[in-house]
């Protein structure tokens, strides 16, 4: 029965259509991902894809990829990207423009901030079910930790720990936040 599966399998999908976004924030932008659960042929290729659109000055939550490298290709606009490994300096800290490509190794943390023209990219990930772990936002690893652990690990007050955990209610696409400092101190 394998040949029947191969012959009838779906080979094409559309991740540019905004209405099919997996994550959407009207202030920040949208992310659409495509993995082998949505397009089974990808399990043969061991690849998945992600299409991202960040509006002007929006941020994609800092995160790391658990099980895949990521190849980011910029399709429109520009943005600042920082990639950080397990030593002090960022391994990449610069502007990416349309037509440029950047590789983010597995487990390295990355943050993207759109420039004035917005930032659009497509990322190819080297696992058919690529997973990432955000550092900030509603699904973040920081939010998954007890307040008390943050207080002791970072030597911060309970109020600061609470701010770290709950100030960003968005999921992974963050709108620009002009008054973040006032809110944090309030």
């Amino acid at each position: 029965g394998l040949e029947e599966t191969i012959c009838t399998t779906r080979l094409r999908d559309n991740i540019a259509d905004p209405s099919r976004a997996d994550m959407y924030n009207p202030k920040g932008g949208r992310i659409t991902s495509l993995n082998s659960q949505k397009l089974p042929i990808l399990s043969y290729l061991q690849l998945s894809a992600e299409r991202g659109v960040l509006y002007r000055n929006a941020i994609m939550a800092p995160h790391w990829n658990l099980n895949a490298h990521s190849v980011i290709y910029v399709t429109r606009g520009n943005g600042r990207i920082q990639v950080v490994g397990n030593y002090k300096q960022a391994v990449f800290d610069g502007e990416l423009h349309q037509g440029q490509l950047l590789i983010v190794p597995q487990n390295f943390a990355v943050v993207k901030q759109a420039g004035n023209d917005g930032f659009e990219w497509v990322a190819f990930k080297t696992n058919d079910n690529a997973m990432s772990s955000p550092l900030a936002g509603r699904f973040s690893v920081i939010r998954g930790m007890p307040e008390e652990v943050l207080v002791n690990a970072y030597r911060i007050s309970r109020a600061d720990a609470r701010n770290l955990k709950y100030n960003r209610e968005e999921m992974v696409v963050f709108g620009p936040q002009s008054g973040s400092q006032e809110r944090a101190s309030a």
Partner: protein
Amino acid sequence: RGQSECRVQSLSALEPARRIESEAGVTEFWDESNEQFQCAGRGIQGTMIPGCPETFQSFQQSQEGGSTRFNDHHQKIQSYRQGDIIALPAGVAHWCYNDGETPLVAVSVLDTSNYANQLDQNPRKFYLAGNPRQQQQQQQESGSSYHHQQTQQQRSGNNIFNGFDVNILAEAFGVSTETARKLQSENDNRGNIVHVKNGLQVIRPPRLEEEERQQEVRGN
């Protein structure tokens, strides 16, 4: 064995207690009753798995109206004690805390050839907090024969927030730059194991023996 017996003053390299040579290889066994294996202490541990909900929640009851106010919530915490094996999936963040009366000794086995690892075979630690760099620099000064190894350790010791721009961090977390700087732990010389004054107060169900004790107190 009672908790008072666990006094590991120093650890030593152990020779296998038994060695079986076969036609095509050797099997070595260590004595599981050795004190070093027995006295491992106990602790609690949190693993943050992306996509999993924060199922441990605490609420505070206000005295006036009797209304409940949300206090804190986080992902599941598990207790462990001597003899337990903890398996962590590749790439997830975790923390642990010694809530026992004795030192907590754990042996980590890192599987760099696991299916998920697409990097090289070098084990890498990505710290979310702490700044163990300075501690390792001191070790480096004390001996030169391990220079290469120590340099590698020094490079692998930093907190990942350290490499990010502090303004981007502040914006991503929605906090002040001062708090973002604390995330980077630049002036924190405590290393990656820190002392918690007055014990770590986290939301977690009691251990079995604690629960039994509580039930005895509550008994008729």
